[in-house]
């Protein structure tokens, strides 16, 4: 009898803990893109917040202590991976005092694990190539197919953390994938007439986007990743663009427009500030409107310039 009473007391004591453990999962993501996808998967069963803003260069986020506070309370941390966050995330995780989100822990989700990654360097890698990512181009979320894979990775991990919500997460994933498939069909159709259009981009942020939607990236404003434009490279690029009749220059919102505008003036190309992330401009509120916005702008520019 005494033993039963003890057990009952323990059960009573544990009850509030168990109830609390079943509250909403607190999910932090490094970017707003991942936050948007996590929101699609987790629905009202989780709370989501991103660290880097969509109009901010995700390579250069400041490791502010206020982020430590947020990470301290997180149950889950979703990262882009492929060393995109290497300059700022490790010290934040280390100081978070949160064992749940340390790399390797159950709450640490590397969204790139199932994604198709481009530009993985082969052969010797040196910094003579600029700030090259040895694990491949980390801007892989700019392809809706990868969006589905990111969603799957998040759904799988959330299901592991919350087996009781597994069906919910998988249902949300199916729903997200279905809507994304439909939207992708629409986006592909919008760009289909312009397949093979030659473009120049500032940084290597758009290889996955270009591959999916049939753009041909023929050059970069940056001479090498992470290296600011040089006069010689800009001249070479202008000549190259004239020769190939390139009429579109895509620039991420966080780069200076001086060089791209000069290139535009010289070649007659149109310079588009094209956000590679959710939140890049205020119209882009989620993962779907990201492609809506970018593709609409791109199609209009192609029509206007007659780019091929």
């Amino acid at each position: 009898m005494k033993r039963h009473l003890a057990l009952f007391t323990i059960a009573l004591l544990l009850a509030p803990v168990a109830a609390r453990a079943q509250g909403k999962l607190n999910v932090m993501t490094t970017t707003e893109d991942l936050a948007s996808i996590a929101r699609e998967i987790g629905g009202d069963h989780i709370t989501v917040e991103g660290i880097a803003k969509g109009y901010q260069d995700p390579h250069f986020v400041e490791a502010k202590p206020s982020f430590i506070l947020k990470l301290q309370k997180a149950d889950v941390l979703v990262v882009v991976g492929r060393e995109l966050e290497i300059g700022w995330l490790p010290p934040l995780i280390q100081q978070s005092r949160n064992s749940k989100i340390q790399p390797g822990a159950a709450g640490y989700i590397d969204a790139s694990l199932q994604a198709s990654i481009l530009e993985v360097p082969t052969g010797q890698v040196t910094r003579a190539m600029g700030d090259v990512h040895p694990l491949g181009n980390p801007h892989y979320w700019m392809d809706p197919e990868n969006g589905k894979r990111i969603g799957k990775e998040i759904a799988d991990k959330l299901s592991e953390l919350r087996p009781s919500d597994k069906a919910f997460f998988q249902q949300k994933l199916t729903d997200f994938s279905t809507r994304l498939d439909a939207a992708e069909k629409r986006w592909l159709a919008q760009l289909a007439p312009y397949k093979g259009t030659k473009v120049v981009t500032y940084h290597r942020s758009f290889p996955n986007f270009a591959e999916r939607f049939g753009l041909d990236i023929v050059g970069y404003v940056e001479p090498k990743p992470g290296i600011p434009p040089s006069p010689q490279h800009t001249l070479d690029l202008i000549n190259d663009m004239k020769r190939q009749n390139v009429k579109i220059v895509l620039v991420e919102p966080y780069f200076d427009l001086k060089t791209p505008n000069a290139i535009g003036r010289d070649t007659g190309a149109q310079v588009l500030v094209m956000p590679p992330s959710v939140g890049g401009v205020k119209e882009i509120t989620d993962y779907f409107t990201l492609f809506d916005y970018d593709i609409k702008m791109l199609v209009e520019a192609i029509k206007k310039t007659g780019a091929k």
Partner: protein
Amino acid sequence: MNVRRFVCATIVAAAFALAPSSAFAQDNPQALRQEIDQLRKDFEALKQQYGERLTALEKKLSAAEGTPPATPPAVEPPPVAEAPPAAAAPAEPAQPLPTYGSSVSNAKVFNPDMAVIGDFLGAAGKNPVNPTPALEMHESEVSFQAVVDPYARADFFLSFGQEGVNLEEGFITLTELPGGLLTKVGKFRSAFGKVNTLHNHILTWTDRPLVTQNLVGGEDGIDDAGISVARLIPNPWIFLEATGQVFRGDSGEDLAGNPVFQSTKRSELAYVTHLRGYHDLTENANLDLGFSYSYGHNGLSNGNVQDPGSLVTELYGIDATYRWKPLQRSLYRSFVGRGEYIWSRRDQPTGLQSGSGMYVSGDYQLGRRWFAGARFDRSAHAEDASLIDTGGSFIVTYWPSEFSQVRAQYRRTNYNTAPSIVSSANEILFQFQFSIGAHGAHPF
């Protein structure tokens, strides 16, 4: 093939299990057909991806055979690297595989992240009090950093300087302690103030401020073997962190060659406590405030025959940092304003010396690669608080890339070497700094 069939079966089973009963019950055959179609599509995609990869590999192989140099084809064994994914995860989309190299080099994955940072200094002009060489390879800092086990990580910073090798820092950080205690054990730079915690290559100047040189142990600072515990203090308003540290009791020396702390017996430990408050004023600006206190023995005899030991030095510090960096333009514009005020109470056989010092500095980023800064210095001497040195600097920094920088600093210092004797030094200092190896975190 069996594995694949099993996975397909699992997916189908999962689809059955997960499909909401209503929709599923209504048109069962249609759903099944869709499922099969989806599977077929997936399989086709997989087949195509594998085919593409195979051709790519063949191309690479033939290219490698055609051009014999550095990497012989044997180093990249495609079949070996190819084998595991097919067996382990056939349902996953194809992706380029990591190249592991030969089986021998697999141990390398556990090697720590390594980096070397070179710091080359040049000086022109006259300095009668604290002359530095015209040219010197001032420091080569080698770092090794890795995770130890699921509970800890370790960081080592070896500094190869003019006088030899010094373990600048070497410590383990326990990340999994209960109660949110972030604990460091080893040798490390103490949490006294701001500049004392920073390695040379993170400073925005080529030198350290006069107050550090005079009152806080010079370039080495309070850098000692000890234990540190830091805890966040929960509150609804700001980031608040309290740090407590215990050290053996030895530290760097000031300009006159006297250590701030020197332990003469085991019981003469040194202590550092630090309280840091941080708040985001806006998305673009923030304020960082710190209060520090340090207590230790200074190695000067207390004159007690019964219980020989040394006298005590106490340090009090306040530091403030204001940072501004517009998020969208963060590559091109930023400003950091920083100041520290330090008060030293040094007990000496001749009596208590109570002196203070401070610096104020500002650094503005002009463009992606250019920074301009200024610093004002003023500090008493620890041993004789009536002697006060002052100085000022202008600094220009250029960043060819994230991994190297060139800096020039004009520095004027008025050294108060003896009562009513001031000797001035006008100097131009140069710095080349460059780093190789693992990509370190950007300083904040």
